[in-house]
């Protein structure tokens, strides 16, 4: 294990133990929780533009679908969070597939605009279907996440009103999504997506059914967005249609771009950086007497500059498709044993 890796593990461990420190600030825990919600979204969105090379401008639509699914199921049926997460994911995937199947045949530009229209329709629906969503008034009184372990011990029934348990729930979800992303990236599925991104015609000639794999990507991406929404609903305990406007899609896209399209760890860093920047800018802008929305000027500029000067994002592609997979490590050894000049294999490994 090298120094860089140990350092990352150390930072992750420090962040994870922070809420247990008695002097920990609620505000920082809150910001970290928010950053982790965006980590889920950024990882999920990354599948579509990052792995498949398609611009998705309506990601917030799936986030909203997940959030309202969770909120309504909680209020009307009192379902447990642990049941709701898979249901929200399924609902997200369903809408992703319904939207993707007819529109992913089209060129990327059309797809981008369709996703945008879709997310605007979601907001309009949430605003206007008052019988279901209470419209602009929002959906208050969503129960917090509960953990029912009474089957183990009668006293073990927990309600997560506090910031700390929520922090750990979302950390768990981030870990889960990260795990799934890494496994997908280094698999037949991930390779098919990369092929589509690099050259659709060559991908088809390799036997990849392009439309199918794009729809799968879009549905999985939507499902992850919906999981993020489901947590958000139970964490904030209040939802309103305003939370799911285009700005959010843009922000998540900006995180993905900043971290490098197709780079999973980059998306995590992008989320941390932009959430922190957002907090800082909110302070700075209000002290300058500017409206808080104007922070998006910075985000817009970041995106333009990155596309111009560092299209691969700020962080080098840390892993190109599962270098740490035992199969590849084994192959590398075998190649080295063939007496190939050392430089060549080392070049390849970096």
């Amino acid at each position, binding site marked *: 294990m090298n120094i860089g890796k140990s350092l990352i593990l150390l930072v992750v461990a420090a962040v994870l133990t922070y809420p247990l420190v008695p002097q920990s600030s609620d505000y920082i825990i809150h910001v970290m929780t928010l950053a982790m919600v965006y980590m889920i979204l950024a990882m999920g969105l990354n599948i579509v533009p990052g792995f498949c090379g398609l611009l998705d401008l309506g990601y917030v639509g799936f986030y909203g679908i997940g959030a309202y699914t969770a909120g309504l199921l909680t209020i009307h049926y009192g379902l447990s969070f642990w049941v709701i997460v898979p249901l929200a994911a399924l609902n997200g995937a369903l809408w992703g597939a319904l939207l993707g199947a007819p529109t992913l045949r089209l060129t990327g530009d059309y797809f981008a605009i369709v996703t945008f229209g879709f997310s605007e329709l979601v907001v309009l629906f949430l605003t206007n279907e008052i019988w279901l969503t209470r419209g602009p008034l929002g959906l208050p009184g969503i129960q917090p996440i509960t953990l029912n372990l009474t089957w183990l011990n009668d006293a073990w029934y927990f309600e997560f009103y506090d910031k700390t348990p929520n922090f750990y729930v979302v950390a768990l979800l981030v870990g889960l999504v990260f795990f799934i992303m890494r496994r*997908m990236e280094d698999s*037949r599925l991930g390779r098919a997506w*990369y092929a589509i991104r690099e050259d659709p*015609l060559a991908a088809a*000639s*390799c036997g990849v059914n392009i439309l199918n794999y794009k729809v*799968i990507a879009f549905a999985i991406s939507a499902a992850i967005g919906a999981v993020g929404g489901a947590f958000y609903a139970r964490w904030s305990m209040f939802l309103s249609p305003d939370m799911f406007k285009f700005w959010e899609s843009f922000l998540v896209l900006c995180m993905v771009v900043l971290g490098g399209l197709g780079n999973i760890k980059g998306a995590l860093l992008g989320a941390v950086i932009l959430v922190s920047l957002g907090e800082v800018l909110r302070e700075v802008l209000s002290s300058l007497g500017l409206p808080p929305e104007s922070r998006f000027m910075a985000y817009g500029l970041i995106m333009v500059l990155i596309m111009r000067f560092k299209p691969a994002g700020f962080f080098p592609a840390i892993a190109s498709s599962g270098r740490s997979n035992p199969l*590849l490590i084994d*192959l590398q050894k075998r190649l080295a044993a063939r007496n190939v000049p050392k430089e060549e*294999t080392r070049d390849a490994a970096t």
Partner: protein
Amino acid sequence: MTPLLEVNGISKRFGGILALTDVSFNVIEGEILGLIGPNGAGKTTMFNCIAGVYKPTSGDLVFTLGGKSQRINGRKPEKMTELGIARTFQNIRLFSALTVLDNVRIARHCRTTSNFFRSVLRTRFQRAEEKEIVDASMRWLDFVGLGHHALANASSLSYGDQRRLEIARALATEPKLLLLDEPAAGMNPKETRMLVDLIHAILDAGVTVMLIEHDMKLVMTICKRLVVLDHGTLIAEGGPKEVRENPQVIEAYLGRGAAHA
């Protein structure tokens, strides 16, 4: 004996232009068939029809596998690949941001089945399949002589090596029929000689080869049979000697080609 592929009166129209007019010929199993003709004769269009990129306007393509014949025109490229028709491209189309190995691993797609759940859970089946994919890919990379470059970036390969990688990628789909679109274009004489050996090795591996090529010397030495297109119509078919002596071909093609040779 039924031919591997029967091209039966294929026509392809783009708007007002007929790129192919009623072209018929057969591809016989185990042969190297050359498809030649001057620029714009419709050779690549023919390839694209066979590979499923274009749907022929009329006519039939009949593919025979294990004694079973089926009409295949209009199928999608991925279906053609699944069926056993692989191809390379005139302008190299590699997945250039990926490694050499990944380029070939992607080609194993149609011969493997692991889905989302198996990939995420990394089941025993999936791990075995992944190992099989790496082994098969390495086998084909070694076959074309690129094994030691497996972990390099595809874009870092030399031009000739990129062409060979494309061939390895096509072979990894386990085709019965391999379509090579100008495989020797841009190669130096040494690389071309290696290509000739490679094509013979492919034939020995039980794959039928059909190739488009402008290098007449190459075509005349390796192809037992040639099909000549001009302005979208078939003007001659037969052995190299016959074709070379066919007055129509000389007029359309070799008359000009001979000056270069």
